[in-house]
């Protein structure tokens, strides 16, 4: 019995580490002078293959999911269940004419999609997609992630400015203002995690969470500060990646497509790709910080390989993004800013305080409940107060209507 169990665990371990083992094997079996090349290729190629593949899958999922939310079928003509739709889309966008406006700044216009895609790819360098599966072992991985993320703003600006289109310029200004504003709560909400974990390395943060009490994991989302932080982080992430309800930079009903209105064909596809890559990256980071990264949700489920867990969580996050997109209208620019500075920022700061309190309260048997209550109160009370402030400041209320008297 025990033997079988050990064998099963060993097998699970082997499957879990299959990519790592393969990587190791491939590198050690290449001749010395080429090793660096092989090891780099083994890092870069999977990222370049897997995440654009996920992008292709997501475009179908999003369209089908939105369709179902809206009581439609969604694409179902190309291939089984419409799964080959992205291939058709890719062929279409590749064969489409690449229109560059006559007055556009050619070089910048050309470079913008390249910059945005390359920065989007760079962010995956520090994302642990499985046990021991991370491209670059950076000690300051989180810092790297945010530094790279901030470079996309420049690319957005390049796209918006070089197109010489009023809509695209407006879109770019919106996008940059929004990205800068929401970067603050994004980083602040992850600081809470950094404080508790005591490290900037995503790998270590995941390892910290991949422990179990009984069968339950130590994910940060199961703490008051972690839960609030997770919501704040994902809200900021939605804004950072221009997802609904914060998709103002490309609000098609107002400024048509925002900063990439003058892009067509493959360049447009690149923007599209970059946008989704950013969503995956930032969702992946959210998973890493709060949802235990690649760790299994219950201890006995750890037999399922860690990378499957990571991608499963990622798909769930994508699903939530699609769901939100199918439900909500878009905010206005000033409301967006108000929300960022008057709600998200204070909440993120309070969340940091809460994390500090959590860290220093003792963890004894009696204290478990008390600590929970204290920290929950630290979050909920300001939440209610801030929400009140937001609503009353702009007199938003559900109205009761009267009817004309008969006469």
């Amino acid at each position: 019995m025990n033997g079988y169990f050990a064998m099963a665990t060993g097998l699970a371990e082997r499957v879990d580490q299959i990519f790592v083992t393969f990587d190791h094997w491939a590198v050690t079996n290449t001749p010395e002078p080429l090793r660096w090349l092989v090891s780099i290729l083994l890092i870069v190629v999977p990222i370049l293959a897997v995440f654009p593949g996920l992008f292709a899958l997501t475009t179908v999922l999003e369209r089908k999911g939105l369709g179902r939310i809206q009581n439609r079928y969604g694409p179902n003509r190309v291939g089984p269940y419409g799964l080959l739709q992205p291939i058709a889309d890719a062929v279409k966008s590749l064969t489409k004419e690449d229109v560059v406006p006559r007055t556009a700044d050619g070089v910048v216009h050309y470079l913008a999609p390249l910059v945005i895609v390359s920065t989007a790819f760079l962010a995956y360098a520090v994302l642990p997609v499985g046990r021991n599966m991370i491209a670059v072992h950076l000690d300051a991985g989180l810092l790297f992630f945010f530094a790279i993320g901030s470079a996309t703003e420049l690319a957005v600006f390049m796209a918006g400015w070089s197109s010489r289109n009023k809509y695209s310029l407006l879109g770019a200004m919106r996008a940059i203002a929004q990205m800068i504003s929401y970067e603050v709560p994004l980083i602040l909400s992850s600081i809470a995690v950094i404080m508790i974990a005591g490290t900037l390395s995503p790998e270590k943060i995941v390892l910290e969470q991949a422990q179990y009490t009984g069968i339950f994991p130590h994910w940060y989302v199961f703490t008051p500060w972690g839960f609030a932080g997770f919501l704040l982080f994902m809200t900021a992430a939605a804004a950072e990646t221009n997802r609904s309800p914060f998709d103002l930079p490309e609000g098609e009903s107002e400024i048509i497509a925002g900063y990439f209105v003058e892009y067509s064909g493959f360049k447009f596809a690149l923007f599209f790709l970059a946008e989704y890559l950013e969503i995956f990256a930032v969702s992946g980071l959210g998973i890493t910080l709060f949802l235990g990264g690649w760790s299994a949700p219950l201890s006995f489920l750890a037999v399922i390989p860690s990378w499957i867990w990571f991608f499963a969580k990622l798909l769930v996050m994508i699903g939530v993004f699609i769901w939100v997109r199918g439900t909500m209208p878009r905010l206005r620019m000033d409301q967006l800013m108000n929300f960022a500075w008057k709600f998200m920022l204070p909440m993120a700061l309070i969340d940091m305080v809460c994390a500090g309190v959590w860290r220093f309260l003792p963890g004894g048997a009696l204290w478990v409940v008390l600590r929970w209550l204290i920290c929950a109160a630290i979050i909920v009370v300001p939440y209610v107060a801030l929400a009140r402030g937001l609503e009353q400041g702009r007199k938003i209320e559900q109205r009761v209507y009267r009817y004309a008297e008969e006469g």
Partner: protein
Amino acid sequence: MLGEGIVKGLIETARNFVGSYVDKDRLVTVQYPEERNPLPEAARNFPFLLYDGDDPEAGLRCVSCHICEKECPPRCIHIEKSTDKKPDFVGKQQFYPKVFNIDVSVCMSCQICVEVCPFDAIRMDKEFELSTDDRFGGLLWTKKELAKPNEYYQKIHPMEAAETDARRAEELKQTQAKAAAAAAAAAAKAAEAAKAAEAAKAGNGAAGKEPSA
């Protein structure tokens, strides 16, 4: 509280998401070329000309009266009257259209031509898969394309066709009865005339071979 309405909305969309898999009422889309909704009896698209019997030329009901041409709001009908006449279904000599064209790129499917036609000659079709790559010729329908047998009409608008057919049968019967009556009257008249002739003959004494008819 902030977020309450948003959560409610999310629940609603989730219900619809699930509902679209289980509830036919929520998923009204029809997968068109494979699946088709049956068109209601009253559905209309573009007009066509009716003919009785097998020969579209001989059986065409249109008598080239130009009423539809005049009443057509976008004026998409063009008729040229024949110089000779041919008998209609009751046997009356009528003109027929030498040319009857409908420009369906102009037609707005309003059915007024059908309403105003006193001869039940024009009716609305239900056929809607009419795309063509010839903008001009392909959308200008001539008598040949327009003429369709009465059986077709009975197929696409059964109730309406039954009513029309009944009315026409009644009309035919009446006409026939009238004709019979007329014939009878004529026969009676003839008989009378014959009688008179007889009498005259008798009176005149002049012998003549009279048809006994």
